């Protein structure tokens, strides 16, 4: 005869293992979700870094254009003025030196504290259940069951009560076709083991579910951060276009300004006769200065407030 408690104990144990297994799968999935998200973020940031490097080179080249225009073209006009006995206030204009991209650091995945709390509670619960289960089962059997002889076990005492209880747990005495006391001892251990496994399994299940949610939240925040990073890449490309525009305008104005200065310098200057030439050069120099002063990005409106990746220009 199969011991009466074996099947339910196996079901309880199997239930605990299944739930615990699901919890472990959730925990592994959580780790995987978090690692994948971090990897994708690293790739996105690396890609942004590549775009920034190219943009940086373009900005530096434009900075050289600004420097050249400031020193050679505007400086040449200032020299001409000083050579013609005029006071000159030479402004020290800022030269753009690069762009910086500030990507906010990604949040860290934290579940250690809560994990430890739940784990400890579950561990104590499992130990408590194991301790309680054996005592409770023995009490129930010795109180309500009958020995193989038909005598109520509650009426026995000492070794007889022990033997009868174990024999009952083992499915009856060996003589009656049961597992006897040895099987009863095994079942007694199972009684201690099964609820512990169930509660431990449920605890792991809870831990796994919580951890998976945290990982999903972490991955979501990272995915949003990645979108911001991709927006920053698009904006860096726009900054390149803006620099190309400024370079084109500056170089055309510088070419016109240099030609105008060439003509002005060729003259034995007479304000009445060559006033138009001077005005022409002065207008161009003023326009060049204004373009040099123009920021590459717009500090007031260039950064939408809800975009967390900041792009700012640097000056030498």
């Amino acid at each position, binding site marked *: 005869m199969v011991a009466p408690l074996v099947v339910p104990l196996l079901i309880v144990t199997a239930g605990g293992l299944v739930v615990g297994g699901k919890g472990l799968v959730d925990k592994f999935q959580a780790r995987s979700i978090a690692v994948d998200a971090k990897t994708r973020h690293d790739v996105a940031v690396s890609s942004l870094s590549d775009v920034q490097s190219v943009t940086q080179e373009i900005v530096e080249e434009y900075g050289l254009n600004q420097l050249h225009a400031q020193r050679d073209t505007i400086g040449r006009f200032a020299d001409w003025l000083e050579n013609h006995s005029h006071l000159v206030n030479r402004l020290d204009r800022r030269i753009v030196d690069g762009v910086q991209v500030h990507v906010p650091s990604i949040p860290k995945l934290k579940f250690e504290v809560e994990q430890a709390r739940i784990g400890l509670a579950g561990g104590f*619960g499992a130990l408590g*259940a194991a301790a309680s289960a054996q005592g*409770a089962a023995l*009490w129930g059997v010795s109180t309500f069951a009958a020995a193989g002889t038909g005598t109520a076990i509650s009426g026995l005492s000492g070794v007889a009560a022990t033997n009868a209880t174990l024999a009952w747990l083992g499915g009856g005495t060996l003589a009656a076709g049961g597992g006897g006391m040895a099987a009863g001892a095994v079942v007694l251990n199972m009684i201690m083991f099964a609820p512990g496994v169930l509660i431990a399994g449920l605890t792991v299940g*809870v831990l796994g579910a919580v951890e998976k949610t945290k990982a999903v939240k972490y991955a979501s925040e990272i995915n949003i951060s990645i979108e911001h990073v991709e927006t920053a890449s698009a904006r860096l490309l*726009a900054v390149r276009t803006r620099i190309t525009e400024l370079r084109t305008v500056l170089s055309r104005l510088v070419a016109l300004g240099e030609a105008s200065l060439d003509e002005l310098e060729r003259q034995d200057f007479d304000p009445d006769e060559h006033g138009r030439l001077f005005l022409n050069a002065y207008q161009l120099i003023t326009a060049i200065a*204004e373009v040099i002063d123009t920021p590459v990005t717009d500090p007031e409106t260039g950064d939408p407030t809800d975009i967390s990746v900041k792009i700012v220009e640097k000056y030498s």
Partner: protein
Amino acid sequence: MTSSKRIPDITSLGKVAPDRLGVSGNQLYLGQLATQVITAIDTWVKVVQGETTRRVEIRVWEATQRESIIAQRDVLIKGLDLTFDERRETFRRLFNSLDDAMKAEDAQIASDVLEKIADLAKSSPFKDLGNVQFVVDELKKGERTWTV
């Protein structure tokens, strides 16, 4: 006997003296066990259901956030493309006008055109970026009449 080493001494079990409430220690064990198991199962069910719901909510939140960011980016890119194209064409026309004015030695027109060139260069193509969210919101409303 070797089996006596493996078999626990349980001779006193089931014989625990009743306490003041008339409940034996092993009855308490049974109550404790039932409470622990039921509490653990209840917690597991609640946590698993709650966490599943939270994960769905998080994914919906993420999708909404990403949709908004992507919409803003699309408007940004499209808007900048159009802006830069328009500015490029305007610069081309202004420089042609400047060439003409300089050839004609018309200082006044040259001055005006240079001022326009400098103003256009100074005006940031990014100036409307701060309004992207507003434009996106207006587009989403669908109730606004766009005058064109």
